[in-house]
């Protein structure tokens, strides 16, 4: 058992720990709220990551898109001739074509799914698939070859390398399998070469949807971005970060997923506030005469409040520890699911801040009671 030195922490700890059942219930309650909040934030993070995953994994400093583009998944045609204009701008060392376009996937069993064709330039590999676990990237150079993710094999109705399906009525043979490439839309990304993507989507050889710009190491990014924007207008030039944020915002806002998840997070928080609040209030009211005696002996109002706040902190710390472990376990268990919760240090940090805020909010009622404490209560 913990043996803190006399002081606020000792009093706070003993007050909590002496009521084992209540303490255990409180920790469980806080942990439960942490899991609720963590699961929602984890989904939010996973959705945000999925919404920008193509951008985050393409080795491009700048993205050239058609004017009005609002998400990487929904692209409009761009004239490939602009590639030469872009290459002529000082500081640009590569301007690779990149296609992203919805298409229909006909399963071998006859069913249909929507997919997102992702065509990259095999010469540079920029925008190509990552986390390849089977097959070879080089195989894409054979006609009708595609690479898909393991998470979506079932959905696509195929069982692995060599399986054959159709995209927009053209043959597609699986020559590679990746792991963990999720999509926000749940339409799987199907990677192929840029030329093959033009074929599948009936784009002309003179068309693409994006140009992926790579800069010389010494180039000043913002200056080049402006020069490109002037040269390529009305096409738009984004930094990769801008375009990633834009794609995330687009999907989280237009689908309402963002606000739904934030609302659910808030509900988890409310649960926690209520649980912590009722415990702290109960154990404070039980001890009013002792607090009043302490006040009579000269404790300041601040010292009394610190006892309650320390109790809130203990509940937050203990509950977070349990809850965070559960969130990590959940993330691990779901790692093979198409819509898994994701975790990151920043997200776990935010979760801790929310837990603290939750417990301190719960402490307010108990604090209010202590502030109104009348020392004379000890005489009655």
């Amino acid at each position, binding site marked *: 058992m913990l043996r803190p*030195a006399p002081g606020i922490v000792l*009093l706070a700890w*003993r007050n909590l720990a002496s009521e084992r059942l209540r303490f255990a219930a409180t920790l469980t309650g806080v942990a439960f709220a942490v899991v609720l909040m963590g699961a929602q934030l984890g989904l939010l993070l996973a959705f945000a990551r999925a919404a920008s995953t193509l951008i985050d994994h393409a080795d491009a400093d700048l993205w050239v898109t058609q004017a009005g583009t609002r998400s990487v998944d929904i692209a409009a045609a761009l004239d490939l001739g602009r590639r030469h204009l872009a290459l002529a701008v000082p500081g640009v060392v590569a301007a690779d074509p990149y296609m992203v376009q919805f298409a229909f996937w006909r399963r071998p069993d006859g069913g249909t799914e929507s997919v997102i064709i992702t065509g990259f330039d095999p010469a540079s590999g920029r925008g190509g698939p990552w986390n390849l676990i089977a097959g070879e990237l080089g195989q894409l150079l054979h006609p009708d070859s595609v690479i898909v993710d393991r998470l979506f094999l079932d959905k696509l109705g195929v069982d692995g390398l060599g399986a054959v399906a159709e995209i927009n009525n053209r043959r597609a043979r699986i020559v590679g399998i990746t792991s963990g490439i999720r999509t926000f839309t749940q339409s799987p990304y199907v990677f192929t070469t840029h030329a093959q993507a033009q074929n599948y989507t009936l784009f002309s050889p003179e068309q693409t949807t994006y140009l992926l710009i790579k800069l010389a190491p010494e180039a000043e990014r913002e200056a080049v971005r402006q020069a490109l924007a002037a040269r390529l207008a009305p096409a738009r030039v984004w930094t990769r970060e801008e375009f990633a944020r834009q794609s995330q915002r687009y999907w989280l806002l237009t689908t309402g997923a963002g606000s739904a998840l934030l609302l659910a997070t808030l509900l988890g928080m409310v649960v926690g506030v209520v649980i912590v609040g009722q415990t702290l209030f109960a154990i404070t009211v039980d001890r009013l005469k*002792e607090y009043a005696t302490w006040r009579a*002996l*000269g404790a300041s109002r601040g010292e009394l409040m610190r006892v309650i706040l320390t109790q809130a902190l203990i509940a937050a710390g203990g509950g977070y520890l349990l809850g965070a472990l559960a969130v990590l376990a959940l993330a691990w268990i779901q790692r093979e699911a198409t819509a898994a919760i994701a975790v990151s240090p920043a997200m776990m940090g935010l979760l801790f801040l929310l837990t603290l805020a939750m417990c301190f909010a719960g402490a307010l009622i108990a604090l209010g009671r202590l502030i109104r404490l009348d020392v004379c209560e000890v005489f009655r």
Partner: protein
Amino acid sequence: MSLALREVSLVYGSGETAVRALDGVSLAFHPGELTLLVGPSGSGKSSLLMVAGCLLRPSAGEVEVLGERVQRWEQEALARLRRRAFGFVFQHYHLFPALSAWENVAMALWLKGLRGEKLYREALALLEQVGLGDRARHRPDELSGGQKQRVAVARALAGNAPILLADEPTAALDGATGHGIAELLARLAHQGRVVLVVTHDPRMLDVADRILRLEDGRLKESG
């Protein structure tokens, strides 16, 4: 003069429901004396203790503690004053049930600024002074009523408070136990403290140096 009241009045509430609990009380207390405050129920004994102990501000009159007139001080300043000047003992002990005897005393010492090894030794010394050196690690629910009251007295002595105020300290205790607490309080007074005890308890009369009688908020000194 460590503690004195001059023309102190205390009125609870206002208008129709106002109650005059103290009415022009003047008093001085002498170190080394055990003073008893007696009187019928509702005569204002607890009220007087609260005003003398700087827990309540009087409606009129002066309260002087350790040479300072404090009747108008604000709450937190009074708390700091109580910290160095007063110890309190109540009928129902009011020990933190989750803390051991030692820790209950230690918390009061902590409040008065002691830390570390010094605090530890002082808490044990105080418990020994009230005859409970061997019960330091016990929690209140493992102690008898008399033992609990001894812990409360030890806590009141923390920081060597020069003034000890007690409200009915023996009322909840049986014969011999109550007598033991009475003698303890007398001994502490004779060591040079101001000790003021509100009581109905005839066992306390034997050990008193001075007895004050309160009736309807007015003082009638006797003995």
